[in-house]
């Protein structure tokens, strides 16, 4: 049985439909007939949030193992078939999700359904596979973190900001855990999370709805669901004082990260925080970018973004300073600009400018079939409803100066932040 959950029209070009199968599998279809290709994304509702100390990194590790042998396809056959078909293949893991993405010519639709449904149930987990991939993952960690100052700083930021929630540990995992994850851990993880009731398939492109649903049903319909678990994750205590750490790294000049605790993606204040981010960092005329890089000229780079997560996350500010300047100078300017926002109403023109920039960014994420699938999959997985990607733009258009000021006062205050200061090794 396939149940239609909803459909959604946006403008004249975009029409989406969401379906649910008996085994819990969700499917979202987004036809785009302008090119003879399609994107096929499988979003699993599992990420590093579903790990524990001792097996940190297993969600990401598993992303690697999913490209290995299955009972029906030898090692390498998955990649080989897709690449021979002209496909682009990749995968990614984060705190709340893991997703597998392919973009393919339309002729390959049945093939990708067969391959993806196969590896959802038939991956062969062996010690040999585990050990060979362990070294690749360890090397990825050396590349992304151990030999990369940016990686070190972000790892330390989350480690310090979150003390009890799983966002505390890095998605790639601690090296000691990467080295010790065992076969049993992997089997348990696979059995639990790689099941239709933990997955949402997003298909965007030159598709026929009827054929697409029938084909997905043919390949996935009989896969049993796993027993859903809703483990209560530890809640972070409210942060009441500023946390701070200083690192000496192999850097050319100082750099500072500030992470302010903000609510989960579905919270009503998130669109306001998104607009606040635009006011501070989007474009050369944004307040903090201009002040840090152009007016006071203490930084070469200044950016900020809201990390949209299932549980409360961070509003991150990242400033790369010029070599003769100190992290404290940047922090003082940030505090000054934030205080100005709290104290003074934002001019109407400036507010409109930010809304226009957000509108442009919205269209930016809808360029290719792959972009569209990613946006839909992300919103469905993190927000629980893909329609939020369209709704958020609408919400932002009506946000007022008072709302931004209030959000700034509530969330971007010193006692609610974690600071990582990094200076060059002497």
């Amino acid at each position: 049985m396939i149940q239609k959950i909803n459909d959604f029209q946006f403008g004249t070009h975009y029409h989406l439909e969401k379906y649910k199968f008996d085994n819990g599998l969700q499917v979202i279809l987004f036809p785009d007939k302008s090119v003879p290709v399609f994107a096929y994304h499988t979003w699993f509702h599992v990420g590093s949030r579903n790990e524990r100390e001792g097996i940190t990194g297993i969600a990401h590790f598993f992303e690697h193992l999913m490209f290995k042998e299955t009972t029906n396809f030898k090692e390498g056959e998955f990649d080989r078939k897709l690449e021979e078909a002209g496909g682009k293949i990749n995968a990614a893991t984060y705190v709340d999700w893991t997703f597998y993405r392919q973009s393919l010519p339309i002729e390959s639709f049945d093939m990708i359904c067969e391959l993806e449904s196969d590896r959802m149930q038939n991956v062969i987990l062996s010690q040999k596979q585990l050990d060979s991939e362990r070294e690749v993952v360890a090397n990825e960690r050396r590349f992304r973190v151990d030999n990369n100052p940016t990686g070190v700083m972000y790892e330390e930021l989350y480690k310090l900001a979150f003390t009890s929630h799983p966002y505390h540990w890095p998605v790639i995992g601690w090296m000691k855990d990467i080295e010790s994850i065992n076969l049993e851990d992997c089997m348990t993880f696979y059995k639990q999370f790689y099941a239709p009731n933990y997955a949402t398939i997003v298909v965007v492109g030159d598709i026929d709805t009827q054929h697409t649903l029938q084909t997905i049903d043919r390949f996935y319909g009989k896969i049993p669901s796993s027993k859903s678990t809703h483990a209560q994750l530890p809640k972070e205590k409210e942060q009441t004082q500023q946390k701070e750490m200083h690192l000496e790294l192999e850097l050319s000049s100082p750099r500072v990260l500030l992470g302010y605790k903000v609510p989960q993606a579905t919270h009503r204040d998130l669109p306001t925080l998104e607009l606040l981010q635009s006011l501070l960092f989007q474009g050369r005329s944004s307040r903090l970018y201009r002040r840090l890089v152009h007016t006071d000229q203490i930084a070469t780079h200044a950016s900020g973004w809201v990390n949209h997560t299932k549980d409360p996350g961070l509003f991150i500010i990242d400033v790369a300073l010029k070599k003769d300047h100190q992290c404290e100078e940047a922090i003082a300017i940030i505090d000054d600009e934030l205080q100005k926002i709290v104290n003074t109403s934002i001019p109407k023109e400036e507010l409109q400018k930010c809304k226009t920039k957000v509108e442009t960014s919205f269209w930016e994420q809808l360029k290719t079939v792959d972009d569209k699938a990613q946006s839909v999959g992300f919103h469905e997985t993190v927000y629980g409803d893909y329609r939020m990607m369209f709704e958020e733009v609408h919400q932002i258009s009506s946000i007022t100066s008072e709302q931004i000021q209030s959000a700034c006062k509530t969330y971007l205050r010193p006692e609610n932040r974690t600071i990582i200061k990094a200076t060059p090794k002497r």
Partner: protein
Amino acid sequence: MQIPSFQKLDTFDTIMVSKRDRPVVKFVIMFPFGAEVDPHNQQGLTNITGDMLLRGTKSLTRTEIENKLDELGASLSIYTGFHSVSIEGQILKRNFPELLRIIQTILSESTFDEDELEKLKNEITSQLRHRLDDDQGLAKTAFNREMFVGHTYAQEVMGNEKTLSSITKENVETHFKTYFSSKQVLIGLSGDTSNAMLDLCVMTIKRSLPTNDIPQPNAASMNFPKGKILLFVDKPERTQTHFFIGHPTMSMLDPHAFDFLVYQTAFSGGLFQAKYMQEIRVKRGWAYGAYGSVDYRKYASTSYLYTFPKNVDTADAISTSLDLYAQAREGTILSTSDIEFAKHYLYRSFPFKIDTPGKILSQKIHQKHLGLPEDYIETYRHHIEAVQADNIHNRISDFFTKQDFLISVLGSKDTLLDQLVERLKPDQVKVISFEELI
């Protein structure tokens, strides 16, 4: 999607790729000169001249320009390459005419303010310094410097601290007057566009700039390194290295360029199934990524392999890479089915080269820039289909060098250098500090 051709409008080469599903327009205005015209000891002058266009005009301050662009929801950047300068970005369709007014202002009224020039030089110097944090980028920079020593391609488009310090307001003004002409400017639009918008764009450029001829640069000769050269970039406390191994190779205009494209794709083209990825990552687990690529340039192209193993695997990984190169040249590493596989991939993935109007625009401009035939994209699949494994085997010696390899390694000298020298037995060893690369 239809692939359009370039059209002459007035004196301009123009191209427009329309698709109306998003109310966004991408624009490119490209000038036919780049960092290659930088005077000796003033590397970075072209780049700085381009950037100064956004730093103030007679009627708009820099702040006002930035405010206006952000109000319009526009992104506008000026990119300098070795052979071109382009003004490009994107904007909501409804604001396009207003954007053109800003472009007209910056092209016809820029003041090249002295204070802004000093600020910009300072900013670029800081950006160059930040590059010291990027190990992969440093290994690649070292590779290019050594490969093209004495040629523009060895330089940074942004210049360096010393050359930047010598650039004055007068230099910038003269450079602008000399080179920023409407002659041979290329204009491209994609997205939610119309003929009226293209006409308006042409009119704007015509009104903004004079039509003077621009001096042609003298192409410097190339003296590629000979023998096996180990260039070691020393950076302390690395637990991992980044290395590039490569040599000069054929241009995209070569009659056998498609044979090479197919062979290179099968050997190291960034696919999981490519031989290099299989040997380095899949079989040996030495690195998370291992791939090769070709940097196609107007005067000389280079082919290289790149990976990033941990220290103890570095000598083995370089040695294996050199063995793989030798096998590739001998034609013993790839079977006919490997070559057919690469052909299928290139043929069938072609729709992804043209699945957005922006990509078609970029492809068309890139091919014109490199002097490729006008129908390069249209005939791409035909050329791929025509590649025959037998012909490739007769041409392999043109694709890869036998002995002239440049090996650029970023790592910690104390841990690795002796070991690498002993293992690789290079004809020449050069050691530089990573800090010399800015």
